[in-house]
């Protein structure tokens, strides 16, 4: 049961995954996924519910076992490996706490395991999230329960932090507070953060890299910057739009009467000029829209299912 010895890999990646597959009985939750996560970045792990996000994080943090594939975190296998796990903080949406626990017990015990724990920061966050620390965790609201996790995840300052849908039940103000504190603390103490979420537009400004998983398959693995410019919506009269997009990959098409709105891939400067001359309007596509297009769903469907 002793952990593997450190192995030197050529890459500087904090996480490197090759051909990861995880099956639960007949269900393939993660299918042959390969990706890397670079140090001191905020990576978004995006996808619908049941897409396999949590499963991937469970395997990376040693909470679940891979069916096949090679997973390295800090260059080592994470399973039952204290050297790796002691550097990880995993905030899981479905985290369970002992029945008799109050938030104060969590904030008392978490520092035993996170060397960089900042008690003052934790106290400040408790104030800001208005978390009652002397109430049974079982009796907390969904939002307060999420706040417990968010506070542990931020104050632990682990070199590798996973937030799995950390904001369930948090209102808009509290969510903004979380994003603000995450960004500020990240700027001051850079570390590797993986954020799994379905509120893509809310976090898109935070993300430097985006991984999108759909039905267990990794479909996007790109820097957020590249992704943001990777699609454009062309709006204008139907005939002008059709003429312009002819021969291009169409991601999405909408139209009312004689007007059409079509989403296509990246356009260079010349093409933009050409579009302008044809009297077409160009508008950027948000990360969320783009991902929804790529996962073949209407936005509404996406939000209700997530």
């Amino acid at each position: 049961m002793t952990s593997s010895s450190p192995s030197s890999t050529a890459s500087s990646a904090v996480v490197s995954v090759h051909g990861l597959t995880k099956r639960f009985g007949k269900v393939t939750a993660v299918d042959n996924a390969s990706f890397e996560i670079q140090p001191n970045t905020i990576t978004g792990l995006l996808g619908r519910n049941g897409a396999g996000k949590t499963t991937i994080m469970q395997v990376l943090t040693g909470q679940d076992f891979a069916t096949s594939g090679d997973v390295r975190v800090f260059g080592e296998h994470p399973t039952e490996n204290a050297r790796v796990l002691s550097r990880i903080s995993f905030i899981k949406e479905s985290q369970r706490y002992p029945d008799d626990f109050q938030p104060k017990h969590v904030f008392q015990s978490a520092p035993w395991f996170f060397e960089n724990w900042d008690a003052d920061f934790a106290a400040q966050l408790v104030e800001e999230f208005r978390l009652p620390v002397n109430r049974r965790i079982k009796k907390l609201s969904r939002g307060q329960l999420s706040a417990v996790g968010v506070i542990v995840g931020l104050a632990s300052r682990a070199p590798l932090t996973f937030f799995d849908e950390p904001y369930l039940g948090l209102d808009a103000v509290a969510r903004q507070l979380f994003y603000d504190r995450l960004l500020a603390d990240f700027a001051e103490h850079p570390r590797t953060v993986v954020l799994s979420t379905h509120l893509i537009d809310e976090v898109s400004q935070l993300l430097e890299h985006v991984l999108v998983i759909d039905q267990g398959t990794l479909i996007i693995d790109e820097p957020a910057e590249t992704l943001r410019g990777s699609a454009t919506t062309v709006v204008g009269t139907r005939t002008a739009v059709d003429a312009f997009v002819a021969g291009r990959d169409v991601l999405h098409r909408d139209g009312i009467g004689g007007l059409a709105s079509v989403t296509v891939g990246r356009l260079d400067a010349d093409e933009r000029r050409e579009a302008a001359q044809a009297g077409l309007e160009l508008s950027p596509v948000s990360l969320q829209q783009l991902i929804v297009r790529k996962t073949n769903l209407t936005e509404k469907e996406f939000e209700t299912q997530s």
Partner: protein
Amino acid sequence: MTIPSTTSSQTPTTSGPVPASAGNPHPMNRIWNAARLNFINKWTVYWIPLMILGFIWLINMAIWWIIDANVSGSDRQDAFQGTQWSGASFYVFVYLLVIGVQSMNMTFAYALGLSLTRREFYLGSSLAFGVLSVAYGGVLTLLSYVEEWTNGWGFGGHMFTSVYFGAGPVWQRLFVFTAAMLFFAFIGAVSGSIFMRWRTNGLLIAGAITMLLVLGAIALVTFTQSWPLVGEWFVASGPHGVVAWTLIPTALAAIAGYFILSRATPKG
């Protein structure tokens, strides 16, 4: 609102990047801290069991008082002889069983959430069960002496000096109480890990196997007409002798729990 400050070693907060090596993988620290997770709530591990014990003791006192006030002569003597068969403190042992179950069932999920390995959690929790067994055993041993010194709390009653525990020397009493506590704690731990690994089906199958084993043993003893021998063995071994034998199933449960939990995954 205040947060209890931590007693463990804390590096002063320095501004700057979090070094990728900033973990605290020292194995003994992590195992001991895993043990501490089990007694972080003082109410659960100290005060509530003591309060229940106190309440049961009060009820017993009341019963003894009723007997004392209404029965006299040889009947009274009979009655108080009878209190030797008291099972009043049995609940403390069941309480430890529940602690064992809850630890594997809930503290486990929390411990993994704090990035402990299963191994660290199990070794730490076993250490915690050991500490609690000795602590509870010590309290019961002390109370058994108080019971003697006060001549059965003034009535000649028995709660901590019942025949199951014996009235041997101090080490013997401490051993009987502690070993019995350990037995219940690890039966709880192994049940909890079976549930964590295989859920309800696992518990049903484990229960069925246990019942078949017990039934087999009963059949064996009955068909060989050995019940008198069994009785003699109990009498000859005395409480500490019988309890010493429970160390075998205790150890088996502890080892089985380790391997069962080593592949278990907390479900959301």
